[in-house]
């Protein structure tokens, strides 16, 4: 028990990537994200891609204004990262995988 609690990684990581159509920027963001998750969160993450062009109403729930936006739903608290995720250091900080 104490071992599990001290380890930050065994939880599931629930990630949502909001995009508006598969634009070059969106594709780039998705690639960056996948690569990063494989390296740091192997086996404990799930990525859901939400295309706002198909489901515009979903933008409201997570207060999406800018795209691409990556939302870390789990673990809490919710984090939002905007941009094409090309700045890997900033993404890691944003996901709390690296201390600020």
């Amino acid at each position, binding site marked *: 028990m104490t071992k599990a609690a001290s380890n930050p990684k065994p939880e599931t990581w629930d990630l949502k990537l*909001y995009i*508006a*159509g598969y634009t070059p*920027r969106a594709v780039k*963001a998705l690639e960056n994200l996948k690569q990063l998750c494989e390296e740091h969160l192997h086996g404990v993450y799930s990525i859901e891609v939400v295309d*706002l*062009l198909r489901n*515009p*109403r979903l*933008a*409201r729930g997570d*207060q*999406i*204004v*800018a*795209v*691409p*936006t990556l939302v870390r739903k789990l673990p809490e*608290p*919710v*984090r*939002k*990262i*905007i*941009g*094409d*995720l*090309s*700045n890997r250091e*900033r*993404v890691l*900080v*944003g996901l709390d995988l690296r201390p600020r």
Partner: protein
Amino acid sequence: MTKPGRPARRTPNGRTGRAEGLKALAKCPTGIRGLDDVTEGGLPRGRPTLVSGGAGCGKTLMAMEFVVRGARDFGEPGVFMAFEETVAELTSNVASLGFDLPSLIRRKKLAVDYVRIERSEIEMTGEYDLEGLFVRLGAMIDEVHAKRVVLDTIESLFSSLPNEGILRAELRRLFRWLKDRGVTSVITAERGPEGQLTRYGLEEYVSDCVIVLDHRVNNQVATRRLQIVKYRGSSHGTNEYPTMIDEHGLSVLPITSLGLCHGVSDRRISTGIPRLDTMMTGKGYWQGSSILVSGTAGSGKTSVATALVDSVCKRGGRCLYFSFEESPDQIVRNMGSIGFHLGPYARSGRLQFHSVRPTLYGLESHLVTLHELVDRWHPDVVVMDPITGLTSIGEPGEVKAMLMRVVDFLKSRNVTTLVTSLTEGGSPIDKTETSVSSLMDTWILLHMVESAGERNRILYVLKSRGMAHSNQMREFMLTDRGIRLMDVSTGRGEVYTGSARAIQESRDKADAVAADQASRRRLGEITYEQLALEAQVRTLQSRLAGLKQDMAMAVKQERERGAAASHDTKGLARGRSADSDGAQEGNVT
């Protein structure tokens, strides 16, 4: 070569036909009172309008009224995207204005969205765009088939999203996109420092129409104003217009745009003082005219005003009474003491009081209140008692301008206006504090004269446009049965009032009696003299008659004496055998 296009075609009324050929800028009415007059029809249709102002200026309210009135009154559904207040907050904020947002949202006439971005939970990791916002906005526009869009206040994105360069480019794209979608939009923005229109220079992108709201404090009194700084492709009023926010929302007063073109009435209304009616060719004031009653303290200005109110209410008319010094109850009680019983009229609703201290709010607000009440209630007469107090909240010039607006506005509604003005003791009596007399059609002056240890009131009509009014001064008396006007005594070339008048009157009476006696005495004397002369004439005539008799007698005696003498001579001659002429002798007998 012919030039068919030149010269410019002329319309029948002589103006060039340029506007006919080109399609004039379409306008989108806001439904906000006054704003559509100032903008000559509304905001530019299909284009964005920037509404800028400091905190608490009413930007959100104006934007909300724009969409709600559009959805409710003009059949144009709207989208309201809020960046600062939640939907629940907005709903409760405008509920007091009678705007039922939930119902409009249910009926798909309105879509409201709250966009919230927490700077703290955002990490920027590369390039982005605002497509998310576009999508949300687009979805709402499609959902309600919106014709109107509000973004309130989109500038807050600048503080919550990084990379200003991207944001600027995206906002530019957003406004372009709104234009392409053909929606009329209102974008609110906070006023920037040092007189800039917006904090982040949004006016650079939204430049078809710019409206600035202002809220400033002058002499501790706050006034709201609205100005249209820019309106591409349309003429518009350029002044700063007084604005007010009340339980009906925002109102703008386009009063200075009024021309002097109001119709006039041929009807007259009684002043409520019979003798004053008489002084004004027997009929009283013109209906729809403006009347100034000025006078020193305690000269009876309110009483003259009340007389009119009483007379109008008695005939079933309606009066609106702005009192800047007394409470309604106080007026009712005080006027009851001189025989004007206003209580029943006030209770039945024919008379409405509006008693506030002038300093309660700014001039504009007074003006707007007056507009509101007149528009809603349609009174026949409006009384403002006194206007003098207004000078404490504005410069004389402003007060005059405001009164001009009031007078023009009320004239355009054919409402009779009576204002009272206090004249400072010692200043010329025909000077009014706010020098409004030139605006007025009728000017009644009241003043006090001191004589024989009394102060008495004098009333006269100094001017009255459009009637041959009396030039007489009248003594003005407040009795328990109303106002009485008395002739002033003008004996010996001076005006007398009060006891002096009474004294003068009795003196006049004594003089008259004396004069009467004198003349009667004189008549007696003449008669006596005449009689005496007649008697003299008679005496002389009888003397004359006597003389004539004596004369006749004397002639006769002389003749007899002559005959006797001749006889004696003949006898003597005969006796002396005288040889005188025998023929002569024979003729003598």
